[in-house]
């Protein structure tokens, strides 16, 4: 047996013994997801036990170093971890912006002290983070952001407004883009971290077309942020912000192994059948695209972990993955017929098909729109002129 085979056997045995049966069922609702954080209420005992067991072994962030709360897995081992999790349909023990976005940015740009402190908190699910990037006047053109941090010696006083801040009302801390030099567009932004309970921070939920209110307007009124809470250098926050966006886009693409990668024809067939040859043909075309994209996801992760992928490749992954996911839900609605229209019924678990369908429309907007992804691919990968 090779080392990797032995490793796989160990992981398989550990998962068999430690992943509760309830945690091997597909995620159906938002509250099936374990987000962690100070105020997080576990939905079940199984959800709590699963998190605790994974935390004890560093399995919430398997490829982070052990010193920061991870399991120190190398790329080949981390791939085995993903495959074995997928094999039993195990839910991620913990999902969070800390894991997907801030963590990778801290690993690259954080000081040793910041890494030890914040990364361990993220790995254990103690602090829930939100992302303060977008502003009312600065969406795709993010670099035009106006939220301002005034230098007060050992701290900044932050004033301004963010918008579309996902889970701002549930988060404990925020990673936030703040202008610290009005004269410099790109090199006048700093990447700050602060507690959402700091005086002067307030949030107002925004209701989505799906009926949910997962995001907020976030206001900063003379918020004091100590100087130690900057990631990277003063006025060089744009570098951190862009690096983090790469990881955000990778996550939204679904490359890491989510439902988005699955074919759906067989599922539709099981849940009511396919009675129309045109629908069958569309499902078949979709399944070709979905299975091909699943291979792309695997290839992308293999390559990015060893530095073989183009650094701008997450943009391509996000573009393709989100467009595919929107199409997936269009097809599921078409296949579901009038049942899928029900908004509140027990049969649809409170309108899950319709609400999910509407939610997916955000996939090609959040984290950078599809049009912006295409701009970035054209410029950074294809090297087209003047893009």
């Amino acid at each position, binding site marked *: 047996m090779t080392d990797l085979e032995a490793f796989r056997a160990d992981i398989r045995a550990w998962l068999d013994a430690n992943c509760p049966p309830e945690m091997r069922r597909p995620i159906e609702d938002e509250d099936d997801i374990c987000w962690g954080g100070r105020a997080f209420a576990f939905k079940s005992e199984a959800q709590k036990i699963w998190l605790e067991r994974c935390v004890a072994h560093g399995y919430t962030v398997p490829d982070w170093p052990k010193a920061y709360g991870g399991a120190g897995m190398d790329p080949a081992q981390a791939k085995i971890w993903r495959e074995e999790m997928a094999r039993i349909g195990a839910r991620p023990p913990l999902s969070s912006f800390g894991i997907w976005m801030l963590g990778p940015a801290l690993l690259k740009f954080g000081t040793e002290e910041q890494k030890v402190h914040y990364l361990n908190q993220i790995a254990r699910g103690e602090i829930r983070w939100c992302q303060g990037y977008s502003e009312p006047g600065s969406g795709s053109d993010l670099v035009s952001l106006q939220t301002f941090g005034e230098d007060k010696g050992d701290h900044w006083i932050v004033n301004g407004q963010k918008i579309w801040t996902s889970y701002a009302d549930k988060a404990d801390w925020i990673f936030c883009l703040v202008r610290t030099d009005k004269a410099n567009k790109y090199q006048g932004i700093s990447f700050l971290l602060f507690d959402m309970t700091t005086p002067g921070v307030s949030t107002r939920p925004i209701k989505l077309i799906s009926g949910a209110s997962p995001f907020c307007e976030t206001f900063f009124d003379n918020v004091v942020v100590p100087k130690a809470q900057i990631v990277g250098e003063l006025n060089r926050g744009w570098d951190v912000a862009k690096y983090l966006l790469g990881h955000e886009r990778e996550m939204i693409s679904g490359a890491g192994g989510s439902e988005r990668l699955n074919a759906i024809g067989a599922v539709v*067939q099981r849940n009511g059948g396919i009675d129309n040859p045109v629908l069958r043909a569309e499902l078949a075309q979709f399944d070709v695209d979905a299975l091909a994209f699943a291979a792309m996801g695997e*290839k992308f992760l293999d*390559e990015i972990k060893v530095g073989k992928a183009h650094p701008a490749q997450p943009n391509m992954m996000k573009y393709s993955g989100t467009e595919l996911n929107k199409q997936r839900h269009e097809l599921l609605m078409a296949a579901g017929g009038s049942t899928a229209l029900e908004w509140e019924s027990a049969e649809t678990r409170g309108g899950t098909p319709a609400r999910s369908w509407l939610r997916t429309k955000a996939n090609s907007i959040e984290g950078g729109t599809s049009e912006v992804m295409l701009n970035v691919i054209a410029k950074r990968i294809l090297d087209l*002129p003047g893009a």
Partner: protein
Amino acid sequence: MPLYFNEDQAMLADTVTGFIAGEGAIKPQLRRLRDGNDTRGYDPALWKQFAEMGLTGILVSEADGGLGLGHVEAGIVLREIGRNLTPSPFLSTAVVGATALGHASEDLKGRYLPGVVAGESVLALALDEGAKHRPERIALKAERAGNGFRLSGRKDFVIHGATADALIVAGRTAGSDSDAEGITLFAVPKDAAGIGHNAVRLVDSSIASHVTFDRVEVDGGAVIGEVDGGRAVLDKALAAGRIGSAAELTGVGGGAFAMTTAYLKTRKQFGKLIGEFQALQHRAAHLYSELEIAEAAVIKAQQLLDAGSSRADLMVSVAKAKASRATNLAVREGVQMHGGVGMTDEFDIGLYMKRDRALAEFLGDANYHADRVATLSGY
């Protein structure tokens, strides 16, 4: 196994890329053969060079004198053949033919494989009957006669058929035309009496035969695999040919795309490079994404085939369907973005469009394979 080349594969890719880009390029090969009214369909000297580099034996086992490598390696060669539109018997001979013969008797292997490895023989698959790929249905009759068989019927779209040293023929030895079983595979030598070729030039300048079999007699030794049980070997040869053509398609798509982005960076209109127009940038970026995904599907299917995975069959069809669609988009966008010159024979982009059309049809087009994905998925 990670979805990228290991060291040996990367080295092979380096060598093959340089070799085919030089010797197999469009001008010295495709255009020269086409404009010289070539009737053979490939350049024997180049085929010999393939052999000297060991490429002809990639899928032939070491015991049979080859390299005993896999579909990933064969795909490396095919991708470059695709990128350079090189007319070559590699796919029909070293991929489909060699895979089928790999399951033949020692005697048959001894008769044909040394010539394949040496770059002296060519093999052709005689499978389709009619204009569309329908391997589920085989009508060509193979009746027992003496210690052998007598073949009667016709085959179409037999690439390299007229120049092949042997045809790999699927014949019906039992059951009715659409039965899955009851198929037998034969290696029929070119000089067997009763074979008629009507060789036709296709849109991409390759040459295919309509082959008629008029009571063609072959001895029992010509059977590949089991009598009535040819489907098993045929399926292996088909899988090899399908993933091979998918790999070649990604090369065609990549070649067309490279030409197109280069043009976007040189052609000026309205005082700007046309690559500055966002309408074209977005289409180019979308196309890039589709081609990347197609390549991922192809290497995944190759690895699954090489590993003997039960999921290989499904993934081969995913790869052929995806590569066909992505490459088709690449050649259509390619011609459009070249404007008027894209319609001229002088520019190569049109040659890519022609090759795509022919390759997409080979061993099942995108619709055939999407349908197969649905069937294999249980709907």
